[in-house]
């Protein structure tokens, strides 16, 4: 299962402790996390499922390429960091 860590700035607004979840893509992993925390979903992606403009997701240190479908592959031992961009405050 991939490790998923949310920016501490997000933790100020909603519970999102470090967790791990199964999945072969960023979308699958995040959906697995959001399944038990539906409000959290809206902080990271919009209602169409696209990554919010001022959010970034890193998989094993690399910024995801597909910000709309979140189709970037994830390994079982991957580390996913959900961060906010420097813009957008």
């Amino acid at each position: 299962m991939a490790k998923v860590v949310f920016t501490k700035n997000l933790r100020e607004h909603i519970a999102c402790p470090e967790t791990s979840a199964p999945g072969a893509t960023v979308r699958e992993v995040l959906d697995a996390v959001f399944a038990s925390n539906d409000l959290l979903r809206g902080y990271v992606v919009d209602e169409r499922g696209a990554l919010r403009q001022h959010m970034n997701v890193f998989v094993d240190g690399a910024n995801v390429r597909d910000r709309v479908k979140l189709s970037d592959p994830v390994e079982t031992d991957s580390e996913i960091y959900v961060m906010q961009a420097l813009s957008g405050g």
Partner: protein
Amino acid sequence: MSETILVGTRKGVFTLKRGTSGWKIADVHFRGVPASIVTWDPRDRTMYAALGHGHFGVKMHRSSDDGKTWTEFKAPAYPELPSEEQAKGVPVLHLVWELVPGGADEPGTLWCGTVPGGLFKSTNRGDTWTFVRSLWDDPLRKQWFGGGMERPGIHSISVHPKNSKHVALAVSCGGAWVTKDGGETWTIQAKGMRAGFMPPDQAENPAIQDIHRMAMCPANPEVLWAQNHDSMYHSGDGAKTWQELKDVKPSNFGFAVVAHPTDEKTAWFVPAEVDAKRVPVDGKVVVTRTRDGGQTFETLREGLPQEHAYDIVFRHCLDVDETGARLAFGSTTGSFWISENGGDAWQTVSNHLPPVYCVRFVK
């Protein structure tokens, strides 16, 4: 009279309270987070706040204990729309630009206006939202475009006090719209309005009028007031036709307007110089008031800064209480003023708030 005011700002939600020594900032909620709209629902005494996190999107919160605790609930979400709707980008919620309670006989009902132009209705205090497809699907809606925002938005919603199914709303830029069946069908009602920023053959097109703010008089809902991009307007027939209020001094330009709750002939506006120069005329902050249905206006300035002031008052930033005696407004530069006598004189509550986005009396 109301003793509490909710203030949404770029850096949080403030509550102002009137104590024995006058008005004071009593509390700040969501410190540091932009709040586009705050709302008070008198039916179940609930405070609402629509937050616009810069990174995390729009979030909705409500409080049933005077702001001591807040509960997040789901924000309205645009449904998947046909692909031709997506030519200008997939419609997703950008901003909550209005949130008002429904009628007294429908507790829990809320109307929510948004950018990019979607109207939402909830019948359960926001637990679930319905996208009002009838308005979105109106062919004239496709003519709407963004004014102050990049995309169009619904910013003013008024519910008829005696008929909850009768709702009037205004769009920037998209005219005024009325439903009399609770949102099943809509009629555009902007006849008489004129948009000087458009080519001559489009200037009177109702579907592109840039209404900045529209207010319905609770005492006589046939009376509505509008501050448009170019001028100010009055309707005496439920928005069917509008008459321009010409040559109001010091200016016909501005954003905010409120209607007196019990006197259909009285309304207040806050002018600025002109659209291309959005500053107070001559650096003086003033409020204009009519008490004769828009025939004449007084300029109210006692207690307001009269030199080197650059305060602009956004469309949701002027409010009146249920008596018509107390008014409050806040500015882009963080000043906040209250009048206890219908605007004749004003007292300063703060000059150091964040930019003010929304002012609502708890009444």
